[in-house]
């Protein structure tokens, strides 16, 4: 298990390295002189030259990359061009807001999705199964931005149940501010996970080891909850790991619609102003988040399923 974990995280770092390098090169490929855009049309040539040198933009691209990684290894993501603050400070200030949003979304949608899916699988082809199927599919089909705007309109503007914008102060207020954004970006995952759990459960329930468990008179509850669900949950864990990455991109617009602080808003703002250090910093963190969550999903799978651990 330990060897598996080490190997898996080695792979995660490799993926992270490739992804960040590609991002680094891509952002340099965006047309327009970043220095000009950052400083505006009235900047003096001296000022432009100084910033170019500061950002090492006069160096060949491979040297820029080496400098970037060199700084990164020292935990230095550079300095924000406008405020002069360290990028790490700015990114880590925004990160908790996004993490809260993603985790709360995945937790409520996974809990509800697994519940609905397992129930539907236990009663296949009944009326309830059909109803949950219809609901799940419509959840999957509902675009998150539409859900976000509608829920904002209904629950915040008309009913005034939840606050419309911002992140709130203190634990309960923050939680209260999370409800609508988490609802909006988690809803389609409820449907998706429910469908997945149902299909996976039905498949496992048909396997012969389940018949064996029944043939020994083990009670049905234990057969379903331990013998079947533990196997049926494996693909769901993988999907949740990947889902974290998708939720990161959903978080971008949720943060804009609900005017929440967070990584997504930070990235959008800094791309429009060509604030390279901030863009790279946020991209690095969100890529790391994605890579780590998929690696964690694999580890959870390995813990649940001895066959996935590989030999020895």
């Amino acid at each position, binding site marked *: 298990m330990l060897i598996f974990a080490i190997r898996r995280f080695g792979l995660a770092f490799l993926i992270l390295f490739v992804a960040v390098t590609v991002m680094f090169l891509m952002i340099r490929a965006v047309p327009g002189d970043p220095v000009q855009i950052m400083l505006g049309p009235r900047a003096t040539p001296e000022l432009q030259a100084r910033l170019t040198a500061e950002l090492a933009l006069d160096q060949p691209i491979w040297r820029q990359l080496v400098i970037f990684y060199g700084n990164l290894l020292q935990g230095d993501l550079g300095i924000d061009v406008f405020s002069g603050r360290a990028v790490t400070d700015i990114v880590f200030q925004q990160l908790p807001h996004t993490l809260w949003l993603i985790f709360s979304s995945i937790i409520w949608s996974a809990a509800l999705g697994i519940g609905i899916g397992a129930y539907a699988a236990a009663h296949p082809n009944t009326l309830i199964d059909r109803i949950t199927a219809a609901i799940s599919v419509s959840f999957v089909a509902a675009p998150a931005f539409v859900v976000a705007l509608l829920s904002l309109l209904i629950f915040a503007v008309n009913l005034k149940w939840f606050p419309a914008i911002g992140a709130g102060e203190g634990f309960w207020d923050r939680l209260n501010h999370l409800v609508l954004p988490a609802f909006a970006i988690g809803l389609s995952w409820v449907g998706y996970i429910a469908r997945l759990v149902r299909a996976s459960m039905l498949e496992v329930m048909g396997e*012969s080891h389940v018949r064996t468990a029944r043939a*020994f008179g083990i009670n049905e509850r234990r057969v379903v909850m331990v013998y079947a669900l533990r196997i049926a949950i494996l693909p769901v864990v993988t999907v949740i790991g990947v889902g974290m990455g998708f939720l990161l991109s959903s978080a971008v617009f949720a943060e804009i619609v609900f005017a929440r602080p967070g990584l997504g808003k930070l990235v959008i703002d800094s791309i429009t102003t060509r604030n390279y250090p901030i863009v790279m910093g946020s991209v690095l963190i969100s890529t790391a988040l994605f890579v780590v969550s998929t690696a964690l999903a694999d580890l959870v799978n390995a813990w649940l399923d001895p066959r996935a651990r590989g030999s020895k």
Partner: protein
Amino acid sequence: MTETLLEIDRLSVDYETARGDLKALRDISFDVRKGEIVGIVGESGCGKSTLISSILRLTAPNTRFRQGEVRFKGQDLLQATERQMRDLRGADISIVFQDPMQTHNPVLTIGQQMLDIQHRSKDSKADKLARAAKMLGAVGIPDPEARLAQFPHEFSGGMRQRIAIAMALMSEPDLLIADEPTTALDATLEVQIIERLQELQQEFDCAILFISHHLGVIAELCDRVVVMYAGAVIESGDVREIFHDPKHPYTRRLIDCDPGHIKERARVLPTIPGEVPDLANLPGGCIFRDRCEQAMARCATDVPPLTQLKQGHHAACWLNHEEANT
């Protein structure tokens, strides 16, 4: 005569399907006495598996019991409540399934699974584990205590089947159902498993209902044989009687086709030409008629009844009736 343990009495079972009822079992009758080994033989699709799942009532949702009884120690299992059935399963009646690679839960240790099946016992966990280890030792798994912590995929196929047998015998059942327990294994392992089953049967004194399409194994192991064809019993009797003096053409052909029975080198292995009739749309008369070389006019119109030919030997074929000779 010893006490009857299991009586299958005129059992008929259908599967409801989109293209009509599939008559999987028709009018099945036979019994298993205490401590006896009864073999059920027949080709794939003849209803062997439907029969054993009917005994345990672990059938697919589209199964319909049309008539008959399955009596175990006098109680009709088809009328028993789900609760009563669960009390029997893995206690008085145990089963070893066909495919040892699929029969255990892949994510739980063997020890955990052997603990779980002792759910009726009030003993401590340590006692239960000790019992599990003892059973594994009895079926010939070396170093059983350590292996309880391992997962099914860490065992070979032969070992997994022995574990399955150990699990089935743990409750000291009165009836052990073995559903082609050696089909998925190679020939050397098959012999080992069969010998082990024989020893354990002596030790635990349980009756075994042994399903197989391997005639050699049946001849070796069983006291009596039931030959099934297309969902019906066509011949049954003492193992010696059946193998030395088969009274149904199908049994005869089956024995001729057994690889262990072929004496001369042949370019083409013997087979029984033709196909099993469509169970959703059964022809009238004898079900084996289309594949039978000795079919007569009468076979097309009347279904031959399962008739007693002598003490302990039944067959369902018109050839055994006086009219055939005239």
